[in-house]
């Protein structure tokens, strides 16, 4: 049998979709043109916080090419508040969020008026004619000051800037556990705000069909299905009259897991004017108005014995919501709540998150969403604890991590980790890294007082992903389920269409889903097409985020294909006049056991089902099938990342010399795609550690509002990554896959910062705030030596 070598799953297939994506010969939303298309431009608040006294759009109407212009008040009729689908507590403060501000602007970039014109140029020029009178109000920027009694309020009608308080206490009582501890360390870490910076900026095109009251909305979204439901609610357009298409989308990283005001606005304007409209953001507009990520202050306390056994962990989190609650804003830190204990065993865990409103761009999901922050905190403080106890950071981890034989393991935070082997991943990483040699070199450099120090950073992470069991999401007060749908259409000529509810925006689902379906159905990889991202063509779906697509959506494809084979088997048995149990199925061929000449292919059966001249008695004339997968558990990728950084103590520059990652993402469908996800994820994690920060001035203006000021590393700034894997299959899905979309970002940030601090610890440095810019590193050295 050659079947094993011909399996698709596990092959490093080049991606089917890349030719069109990289040449641009595809439907990017901004490429869409049509007769009579109008263009939207949005006037945005130049102030972080102000009362809007007067908006006069009439001068804009005098400008050439302008068709219409609206202030917030003009649009308030028929445009509801933008939705937040994750009210994490019963008493959460949920402010009104109009797509265009009416009385008050609450962040620099908050929309105040809209111009509609015949081309983008006319629209942009006319914005300058709009007159707005503002009365400045005090900005609210500091998370702790915002909670003071007399703090100015972001939403005066709510009487507080405290959005919610979400506690979680598990295991023994933390205070009591702490009493038993020999060592208690307290640290404060800051998760700076990040700007997601997908390669394709946001764009939306709405095409109305006034005669039938139907609307088609193309958007650069990760979530066409959720968007359709939410926009129906915001605009009052009946859901069945609204079709949402996410054509090829150029990256999201969570920033397109959103229901944006601009999407609602485009729909409202198209409805008002009865004409198609387009809006495309510029990069600098996106820096202001596409949601941001992270933005937290973490107070972390860890209690341990002298021997380095963890006893308990306490986390107090302040999370910056920004000015409004967007789709899952309040839930992002809660996704992290379960991950602070990481891969370690302990007796008590005490977590509290306080959500805080500020006059800044709203925050929401950004690659990893809560879990990178959690992993950073635990992995950083583990290194601090190791230093305190005089232990090697790897050794401290070994003494505390869950051992292979202990899975499935109920984590202290209440999750059930299904599988993993932390020792195997770590041992492999250490060998690839040359850990002992690097430690020796580090020591030598220290001894000779080399101005360039060497540091080694460790990050042994896990994460919960593959969102998610619907029942658990319900318990967490999330507004939707976590299932995913797939259907398989066996075409009469033997070709296959896989319809998925996931919505790829760079992940390569077309390729991976083809591999999964090809294996189960026994058809060639090339004979499979994947249909996605259109609520009319792929009507049922929960979309793409949280490393869920393969684990839930790919698994749904697998199960739907199994159902197709089951139906085909009935037809084959009928045609071959055999018992179903007497049929073998391999490589797309049904044959009768013992008489291999009696055979038929799945393609022949597809045609037989199409013609239906001779189907089994009582069987529907189709072998198509669908499956909706609702996983029983999250999935838990893990791994060990090791980073060696050279720190130039004279300039403060940190240069990554080597980076090794050994990830366990369960069974791998396409190793090339996994490799790409790890590379991109690690690059983004390094971005947070060294480069990226949304900087605001004291008035609340975004200072880093272009890519010249907001530094995103490119390939030349990054080292070669050494990647490898271990494999313990997930038990919660038939593929055994764990998801890989976020792991690199989750793992990398603490590995890099740990390495920098490790390099400087002999100089007395115990922390450097992110991003660890050369200046911050230099200042840390100066302060330590002062």
């Amino acid at each position, binding site marked *: 049998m050659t079947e094993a070598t011909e399996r698709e799953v596990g092959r490093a297939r080049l991606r089917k979709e890349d030719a069109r994506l990289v040449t641009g010969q595809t439907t990017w939303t901004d490429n869409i043109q049509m007769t009579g298309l109008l263009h939207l431009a949005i006037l945005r608040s130049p102030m972080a916080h102000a009362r809007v006294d007067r908006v006069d759009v009439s001068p804009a109407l005098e400008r050439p090419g302008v068709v219409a212009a609206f202030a917030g008040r003009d649009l308030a009729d028929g445009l509801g508040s933008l939705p937040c689908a994750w009210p994490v507590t019963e008493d959460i403060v949920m402010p009104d969020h109009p797509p265009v501000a009416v009385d008050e602007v609450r962040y620099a970039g908050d929309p105040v008026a809209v111009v509609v014109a015949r081309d*983008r*140029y006319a629209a*942009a*020029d006319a914005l*300058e004619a709009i007159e707005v009178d503002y009365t400045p109000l005090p900005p609210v920027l500091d998370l702790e000051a915002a909670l003071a009694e007399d703090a100015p309020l972001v939403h005066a009608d709510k009487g507080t800037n405290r959005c919610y308080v979400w506690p979680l206490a598990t295991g023994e009582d933390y205070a009591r556990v702490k009493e038993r501890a020999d060592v208690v360390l307290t640290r404060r870490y800051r998760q700076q705000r990040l700007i997601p910076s997908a390669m394709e900026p946001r764009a939306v095109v709405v095409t109305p069909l006034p005669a039938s009251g139907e609307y088609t909305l193309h958007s650069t979204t990760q979530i066409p299905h959720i968007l359709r439901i939410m926009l129906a609610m915001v605009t009052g357009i009946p859901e069945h009259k609204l079709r949402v298409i996410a054509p090829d989308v150029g990256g999201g990283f969570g920033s397109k897991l959103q229901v944006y005001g601009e999407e609602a606005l485009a729909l409202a304007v198209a409805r008002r004017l009865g004409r198609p409209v387009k809006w495309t953001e*510029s*990069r*600098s507009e996106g820096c202001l108005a596409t949601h941001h990520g992270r933005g937290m202050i973490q107070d972390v306390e860890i209690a341990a014995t002298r021997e380095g056994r963890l006893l308990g962990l306490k986390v107090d989190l302040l999370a910056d919501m920004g000015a409004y609650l967007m789709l899952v804003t309040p839930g992002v830190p809660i996704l992290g709540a379960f991950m602070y204990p990481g891969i370690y065993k302990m007796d008590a865990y005490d977590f509290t998150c306080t959500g805080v409103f500020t006059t800044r761009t709203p925050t929401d999901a950004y690659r990893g969403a809560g879990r990178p922050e959690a992993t950073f905190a635990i992995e950083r403080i583990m290194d601090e604890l190791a230093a305190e106890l005089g232990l090697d950071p790897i050794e401290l981890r070994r003494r505390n991590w869950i051992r292979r034989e202990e899975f499935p393991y109920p984590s202290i935070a209440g999750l059930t980790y299904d599988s993993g082997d932390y020792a195997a991943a770590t041992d492999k990483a250490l060998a690839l890294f040359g850990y002992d040699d690097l430690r020796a070199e580090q020591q030598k450099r220290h001894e000779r007082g080399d101005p360039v120090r060497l540091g080694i950073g460790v990050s042994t992470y896990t994460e919960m992903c593959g969102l998610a069991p619907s029942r658990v999401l319900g318990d967490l007060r999330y507004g939707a389920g976590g299932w995913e749908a797939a259907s398989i259409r066996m075409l009469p000529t033997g070709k296959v269409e896989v319809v998925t509810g996931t919505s790829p925006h760079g992940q390569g689902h077309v390729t991976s889903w083809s591999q999964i379906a090809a294996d189960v159905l026994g058809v060639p990889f090339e004979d499979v097409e994947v249909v996605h991202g259109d609520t009319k063509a792929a009507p049922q779906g929960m979309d793409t985020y949280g490393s869920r697509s393969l684990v839930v959506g790919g698994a749904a494809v697998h199960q739907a294909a199994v159902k197709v084979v089951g139906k085909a088997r009935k037809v084959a048995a009928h045609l071959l006049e055999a018992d179903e149990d007497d049929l073998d199925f391999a490589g797309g061929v049904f044959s009768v056991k013992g008489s291999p000449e009696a055979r038929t292919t799945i393609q022949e059966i597809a045609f037989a089902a199409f013609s239906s001249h001779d189907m089994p008695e009582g069987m529907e004339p189709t072998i198509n099938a669908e499956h909706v997968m609702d996983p029983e558990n999250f999935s838990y990728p893990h791994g060990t990342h090791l980073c060696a950084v050279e720190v130039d103590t*004279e*300039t403060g*520059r940190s240069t990554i010399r080597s980076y090794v990652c050994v990830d366990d993402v369960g069974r791998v469908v396409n190793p090339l795609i996994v490799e790409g996800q790890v590379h991109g994820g690690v690059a983004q994690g390094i971005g947070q550690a060294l*480069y990226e*920060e949304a*900087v605001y001035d004291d008035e609340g203006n975004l*200072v*880093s509002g*272009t890519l*010249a*000021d907001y*530094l*995103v*590393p*490119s390939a*030349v*700034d990054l080292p070669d990554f050494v990647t490898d894997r271990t494999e313990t299959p997930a038990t919660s899905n038939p593929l055994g896959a764990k998801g890989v979309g976020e792991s690199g970002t989750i793992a990398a940030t603490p590995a890099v910062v740990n390495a920098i601090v490790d390099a400087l610890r002999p100089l007395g440095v115990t922390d450097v705030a992110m991003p660890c*810019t*050369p*200046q911050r590193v*230099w*200042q840390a050295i100066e302060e330590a030596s002062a």
Partner: protein
Amino acid sequence: MIPPAFDYARPASVEEAVRTLAEAGDEAKVLAGGQSLLPLLRLRLAFPELVVDVGRIPGLSGVREDGDTLVIGALTTHHDILRDPLVGRYAGLLAAATRTVADPAVRHRGTLGGSLAHADPAGDLPAVALALDAELVVVGPQGRRTIPAREFFVDYLQSALRPDELLVAVRVPKREGWGFRYEKFQRVAQAWAVVGVAALVRRENGHIAEARIGLTNMGATPLRAAASEAALAGVPAVADAVARATAAAAEGTRPSSDPSATPEYRAHLARVLTRRAVLAAAGGE
């Protein structure tokens, strides 16, 4: 990212360009490679009424020798400068600094003249022009004049070019046997310099006979590190001596503050980078 409306002229000769500029008064901007002006327009930070595109005027690009001087046409692209054998032989510092400018796409469009006329103190080439003692040849209604680089950079984004003048060439004294180094400190590869140091060193008998040092992004204009230049004259080309002499590198500078660097940190970097640049240029470690 849509520029405000502007008129556009594309003169065919230097004379026509100067005439066009003269007629427009203060309201025109010259467009060469567009790598500085176009972003300013698209971000609506510049609002010229007229953009005068000189990109197709013949005879303004290329490098030639004129006795002891290299004459580099103002429209010579960074890319062409990197490939030019005369520049490589007689003005290696210029090539070394040009190699660090932005990215290949920018280097294919951007020009030496455009980058000098833009007079951005964070640009790499103004400080190099200073260190090289270059002269800038400009043409106006009254004819041609030559401005020493020392007098060309007047203030932040302001040069000694009058609104009706066009920069046509850069004259660089040929230097053979000088060591050079451009030390650029930047946070990511395509970013502007936080601080840059352009060093030229003439070495005699193990000593530094003469040093010229241009500083990038240490004030409103590119600057010469005059105190360090004076201190370096005659010192041995070894680490300790060079370190002592370059401790004054930031003297007389007024660096700005931004999220990447405070003035204090910039001054510190200037000292470290000047020491490194001079040592490298002097063939030290």
